[in-house]
């Protein structure tokens, strides 16, 4: 039905009214003469209908033949529109210019969407693609997708597979990153043979081994890196047995943690003091919307780049908002009590971290607060008991 309507509109049609004593005769005559009339509405002695513009003369002749009066109402369709705007050359020129603009612009790539996997920075990837001539605003003819794909695979070692799909003015880059093979798993060295060494200086309090031969006893002092248990055991008959050392060796160790609170600290000035720079990029052309000067290198900038979408389709128009925050030193001079409370809070948090995460039992701690020109310094000395055994694998492939 829509197709019929479009065809009628392109050809052009007109409304007319035929009135007389017997207007049905006009319909019969029109049908017999092959005149296609439609939207026929009868009301008493008159009939209104529509017909093609090209059949006007025949309709007038038939109306006269059946003794009816003919009245033409209105014309519709493209020929009428063309006649109406024939004098307006500007409109025609605009239409032609618009068509040319669309044809030219459709030869460029305006949107590149990259499906970036984890571990690969999209910005870096875009700059690499730009170096290879694949960027937003590049002419499609000059973009060699297969060569770009190969070159990218050679350049970036993190990419295992890359595909560039261009559809119209949009391009989609699909990337698959390389999967890192765990070097420990790929090693042929048997992991079964290992020693236990000390990870800190201290005094042994308890030795508890499930496998391996102990090299230290409780009460002995040890240094960092010293062997605590061996995975190689020589038997009395001269045989050597290899084993994977397992166990816990607890020792009293000393740890020192320093917490510092500066009297002056660098901070970002409040957003009210920020300078905002707005710009619009249309088809690669950057148009500034605000005339402001960029602050010096001490300023911190945050940019927000948005792509315009029209009916959920991306349009090559970008809106960029860049905010510059001047960085300066904010005076923050806390009094001694406040500083001490704050630093002790941090120390308590660190203590909880030691106990929870490193399985350390704090036996004793000593806190010393000192005030300098730069700020307050809290030194905490811990005496704690913890497992100092650290596993070290032995390579025995060459019999060593």
């Amino acid at each position: 039905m829509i197709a019929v309507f479009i065809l009628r509109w392109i050809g052009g049609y007109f409304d007319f009214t035929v009135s007389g004593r017997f207007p049905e005769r006009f319909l019969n005559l029109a049908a017999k003469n092959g005149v296609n009339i439609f939207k026929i509405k009868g009301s008493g002695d008159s009939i209104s209908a529509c017909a093609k513009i090209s059949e006007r003369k025949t309709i007038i002749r038939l109306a006269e033949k059946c003794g009816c009066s003919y009245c033409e109402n209105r014309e519709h369709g493209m020929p009428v529109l063309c006649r109406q705007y024939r004098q307006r050359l500007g409109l025609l020129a605009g239409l032609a210019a618009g068509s040319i603009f669309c044809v030219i612009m459709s030869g460029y790539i305006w949107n590149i969407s990259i499906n970036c996997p984890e571990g690969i920075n999209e910005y870096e990837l875009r700059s690499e693609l730009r170096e290879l001539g694949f960027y937003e605003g590049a002419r499609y003819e000059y973009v060699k997708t297969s060569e770009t794909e190969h070159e990218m695979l050679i350049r970036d070692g993190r990419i295992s597979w890359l595909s560039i799909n261009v559809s119209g003015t949009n391009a989609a880059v699909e990337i698959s990153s390389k999967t890192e093979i765990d070097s420990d798993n790929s090693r042929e060295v048997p992991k079964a043979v290992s020693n236990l060494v000390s990870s800190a200086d201290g005094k042994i309090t308890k030795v508890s081994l499930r496998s391996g031969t102990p090299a230290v006893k409780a009460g002995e002092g040890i240094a960092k890196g010293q062997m605590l248990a061996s995975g190689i055991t020589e038997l009395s008959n001269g045989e050597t047995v290899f084993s994977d050392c397992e166990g816990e060796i607890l020792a009293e160790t000393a740890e020192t943690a320093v917490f510092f609170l500066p009297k002056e600290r660098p901070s970002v000035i409040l957003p009210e003091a920020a300078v905002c720079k707005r710009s619009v990029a249309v088809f690669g052309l950057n148009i500034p919307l605000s005339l402001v000067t960029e602050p010096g290198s001490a300023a911190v900038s945050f940019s927000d780049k948005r792509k315009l979408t029209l009916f959920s389709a991306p349009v090559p128009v970008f809106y960029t908002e860049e905010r510059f925050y001047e960085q300066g030193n904010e005076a923050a001079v806390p009094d001694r009590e406040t500083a001490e409370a704050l630093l002790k809070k941090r120390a308590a948090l660190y203590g909880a971290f030691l106990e929870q995460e490193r399985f350390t039992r704090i036996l004793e701690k000593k806190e010393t607060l000192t005030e300098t020109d730069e700020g307050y310094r809290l030194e905490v000395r811990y005496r704690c008991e913890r497992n100092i055994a650290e596993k070290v694998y032995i390579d025995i492939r060459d019999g060593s």
Partner: protein
Amino acid sequence: MRKDKKDNKKSPYGLIDTSSSVRMSICSNREVIFEGSRGILEYCDSSIKINTGKYIVAFTGRGLHIKTMTEYDICIRGFITSIEYIL
């Protein structure tokens, strides 16, 4: 009697020859596609009478109008309340 025989012309296989008869495709009571028209006798929004040569078919209803027509076919639309054969 002779006329009736002529009307009910049968094919060699005993079936009625419908090649010159009237056909109507009725879609609910809203649209009728009429094939085999010899001319419109009356046309207004409440009644349409069509001559078929042998009889007249009268459509009555509300808002009746001819959507499109050719020499033998007519498409009628509207709210049809009755279809009458006038012999």
